[in-house]
């Protein structure tokens, strides 16, 4: 406590922090970025290991033999799908029943707030079919889920075939201590949402679905399977779920362990693991993998059908078969054996997966960075905001009461009116509310008056409101009487800095990637913006680092990292579709990224913009 109570030492510390404030901030920023980039360097990461006892020490044998038959079922399914022109419900029910499952269906309808142009759907009507294999060995209090989406066109037929094949095979085994639910969901995530809400008796987003007729126990884990070819070269594991939530790391470990055991090539983010971490290309490969994970997590959308399970405290992942032009091929029997092994191990679970990490980043499938290692990168960025706030606080007091000894004397400067601070804050937030509500509300009007489709109308309205917000500082000043004082902007900036710090801190706890990306772009402008910097230059920098532009860069970087670079034109179109997807994700599944950006981050940025144009 000496530091807090001894005025001399406090004064020395304060003086140090205020005099060296700018260099310390720059150092912190660079250190934060360097720390983050260092996370992909293999010696700094940990090797994954199985923490769950129930899955680690027990042996299982995989004997699934019927890969060919599964493929034949898949072809049959494809034929029926083509004939019906959608989900062949009757055929599926009959087939599942013939395999000895209790079969139920659930129908659902959903009207999207505006047409989804990526998937070309607006009024969605569909049916989920699921069969329950009752556990022969235990009271039916727990369940596992294996799901395969019924997609349009020729996709995923093999996945449904394998699912049915596994159902038949599992039925003949006596090991099962948990119910196993085989689910074929239509319209990917919308169907999954309907099924999960039906299963858990909730309705969070106002969908319309029929109640479920049959249930298993509480779901412990789920896998979603996506296979589109008879043979595959590698399996890709997808972990990122809604709002950047990740399943327990043990699920990834389980997948990796079986891939190693059976000898299947496995990837994460579509990137194979490399052993040459000490070369530049090896490091950049790991860094790219990690950056992809960060970008996907930051988007807050479910990247596979498993993404919605996580909300219900169910560990889930998607497994995606990839067929590229490699020599090494894996047939369906092998994938079936892999899944059998994973379900046998999950069947052994005595409690929910909880032993291993929930907060992690993966530079490769066998390496991970836990929260304790990556949080300092964010902390170094966030501390800049606090340092700047401290600096402002010291400047604000002519006899700074918070930091120096009270005796130093001097008259307290008249504090700026509450109104001059409150007005920009309120106006910024009103703009945020407009950005959040207006695009969907005004789509009809926009469609009537302009030659655009509904989706374009929504996206363009959002961009228009976003841009219109930039004109605000002038309007704010018209509302205020008198001149803004020097004190005024300092107080406003103090408020904005603390607000941003708390906001980013909370965001980073829920979704580290989103918090980190936002901090990366917002912290520099928040730290160094004043009304006295050259206006044009600062304004340009501020616009370039605004949340909207950050999103645009993310789109380009993401495409670059996925090795599918796009031209400027395509990138812009992609950017527009990303915005519409973000709004849809919020409306359909309750993703929080869009409201967070519109209602909190954007107003905060507007506050900083206000400071720049303070008169």
């Amino acid at each position, binding site marked *: 406590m000496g530091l*807090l*109570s*001894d*005025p*001399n030492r*406090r004064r020395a510390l304060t003086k140090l922090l205020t005099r060296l404030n700018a260099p310390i901030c720059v150092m912190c920023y660079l250190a934060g970025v360097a720390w983050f980039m260092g996370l992909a360097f293999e010696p700094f990461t940990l090797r994954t290991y199985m923490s769950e006892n129930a899955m680690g020490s027990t042996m299982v044998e995989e004997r699934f033999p019927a890969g060919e038959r599964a493929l034949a079922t898949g072809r049959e399914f494809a034929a029926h799908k083509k004939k019906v022109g959608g989900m062949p419900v009757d055929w599926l029910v009959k087939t599942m029943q013939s395999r000895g499952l209790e079969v139920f269906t659930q129908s659902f309808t959903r009207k999207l707030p505006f047409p989804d142009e990526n998937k070309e759907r607006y009024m969605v009507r569909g049916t989920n079919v699921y069969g329950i294999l009752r556990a022969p060995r235990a009271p039916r209090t727990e369940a596992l889920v294996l799901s395969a989406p019924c997609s349009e066109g020729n996709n995923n037929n093999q996945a449904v075939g394998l699912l049915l094949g596994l159902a038949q095979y599992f039925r003949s085994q006596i090991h099962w201590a948990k119910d196993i639910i085989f689910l074929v969901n239509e319209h990917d995530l919308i169907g999954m949402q309907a099924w999960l809400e039906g299963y858990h008796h909730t309705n969070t987003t106002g969908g319309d679905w029929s109640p479920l007729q049959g249930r298993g126990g509480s779901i412990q884990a789920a896998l979603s399977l996506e296979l589109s070819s008879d043979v595959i070269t590698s399996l890709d594991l997808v972990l990122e779920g809604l709002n950047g*939530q*990740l399943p327990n790391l043990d699920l990834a470990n389980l997948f990796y362990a079986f891939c190693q055991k059976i000898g299947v090539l496995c990837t994460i983010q579509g990137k194979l693991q490399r052993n040459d971490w000490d070369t530049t290309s090896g490091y950049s490969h790991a860094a790219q993998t990690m950056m992809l994970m960060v970008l996907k997590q930051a988007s807050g959308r479910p990247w596979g059908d498993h993404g919605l399970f*996580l*909300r219900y*405290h169910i560990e889930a992942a998607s497994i995606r078969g990839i067929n590229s032009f490699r020599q090494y091929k894996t047939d369906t029997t092998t994938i079936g054996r892999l899944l059998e092994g994973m379900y046998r191990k999950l069947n052994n679970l005595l409690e*929910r997966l*909880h032993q291993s990490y*929930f*907060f992690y980043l993966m530079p490769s499938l066998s390496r991970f960075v836990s929260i304790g290692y990556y949080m300092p990168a964010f902390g170094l960025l966030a501390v800049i905001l*606090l340092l700047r*706030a*401290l600096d402002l*606080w010291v400047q604000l007091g002519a*006899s700074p*009461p*918070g*930091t120096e*000894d*009270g*005796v130093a*004397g001097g008259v*307290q400067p008249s504090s700026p009116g509450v109104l001059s601070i409150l007005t920009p804050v309120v106006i910024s937030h009103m703009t945020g509310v407009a950005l959040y509500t207006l695009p969907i509300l005004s789509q009809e009007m926009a469609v009537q008056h302009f030659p655009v489709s509904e989706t374009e109308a929504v996206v363009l309205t959002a961009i228009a409101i976003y841009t219109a917000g930039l004109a605000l500082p002038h309007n704010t000043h018209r509302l205020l009487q008198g001149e803004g004082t020097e004190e005024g902007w300092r107080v406003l900036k103090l408020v904005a800095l*603390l607000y941003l*710090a*708390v*906001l980013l*801190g*909370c965001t980073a*706890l*829920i979704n580290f990637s989103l918090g980190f990306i936002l901090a990366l772009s917002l912290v520099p402008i928040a730290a160094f913006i004043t009304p006295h910097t050259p206006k044009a230059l600062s304004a340009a920098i501020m616009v370039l680092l605004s949340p909207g532009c950050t999103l645009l860069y993310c789109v380009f970087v993401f495409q670059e990292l996925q090795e599918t670079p796009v031209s400027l034109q395509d990138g812009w179109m992609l950017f527009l579709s990303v915005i519409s997807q973000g709004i849809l994700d919020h409306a359909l599944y309750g993703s929080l990224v869009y409201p967070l950006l519109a209602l909190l981050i954007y107003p905060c940025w507007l506050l900083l913009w206000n400071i720049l144009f303070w008169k």
Partner: protein
Amino acid sequence: MAAPLTLLLIVAVTIRAVLFRSSLAELIPERVEVVSPLNAWKRVVEGLALLDLGVSPYAGDVFHETPLIIYFFHFVIDYAEIVFMVMTRLVGCVFLLQFRKQKYALEAERYPLDCLELIRTPKEMYYIPLKVAMFYLLNPFTILSCVAKSTCGLNNAVIALFILCTVKGSSLMSAIFLALATYQSIYPLTLFAPALLYLLQRLYIPVNWQRSSFWLFTTQYTFMYLGSLCVMVCLSFFLLSSWDFLSSVYGFILSVPDLTPNIGLFWYFFAEMFEHFRLFFICVFQINVFFYTIPLSIKLKEHPIFLIFMQIAIISIFKSYPTVGDIALYMAFLPAWNHLYRFLRNIFLVSVVLLACSALFPVLWHLWIYAGSANSNFYYAITLLFNVAQILLVSDYFYAYLRREHHLTHGLYLKRKDGSEATLVLK
């Protein structure tokens, strides 16, 4: 004064009315930060239902309010929202009244000349009651607590009335309200000492063990206090014709059987503890609340109102089921001490920590309970930090108060013996 007060009341009531009608009204009463097992409205409703069925409301271990409260709500159940609004307004108005008069006599005494700037001008004093009322009525913590219909608002009203009566110098009413507050939640017991000190000061009776007038008044006040407490307890017994409520209310407060997470320090500690240490540590934890009364009373015997503030703050930090409503009560006092502002040292740090913690509570709760990715340690870490910040805040105010007193007697600009400027160091 009337116009701004009316405006303030209208704003405060509007905010609450809007929140009562919004969808948040269902969410807020579920938050563990806002309601505790003692004062949750859900539990009061349950107790009332049991009472209507002719069962003891304490059967079933859900209801832990005192019998008088349940009979009070028995009559006003239909107007519950209005009651809560009135209660908060009452507290606000009471705070408004009580700071009118006090503190003047103290400062009119002769101090060294350069201390003039330390003494508050009447103009500043004039606005303090309004600021206090504003701090209470517009504090988000109070608003949350009111919207959740936590009975904490009632307790706050009783304590505020007690302070008002004490400041007005009515010893009988003061004793009655103190007894009522004690009857509600035991802990206000520690406010006995400051109230007594204040009343003695008002009657110009020195605190002197040899003087008979001191003993006479102390006995008188104690008797009034214990008498009214006794009446209330007996009344409760006659209303319910059983002593169930003693173990169900006071036993519940003191032995802390409900370890639902809250913003206090008890739950995590006792959830982790081996059963056979429990009694010992419960004693240690509970003594914490009462223990500080003695040293603080000795140190602050000249300043009973500040002592009341310190005691209320300590109660709200160390009580077994604290909620944000308790914190709002002592935070309402802060504008009254705005003359200490220049001596505060950590106010920036503390307010940033308090702010950050308030935002992090719901986030970590979400991660722990809904997402399942964090665990109780995360939440407790924030609780701990929140309480440390509160303790720092209170001790900072304590230090500033003593410091101001020192300057009032020794002059504002201290000189060392060799003539250079001196600074005070707390060791």
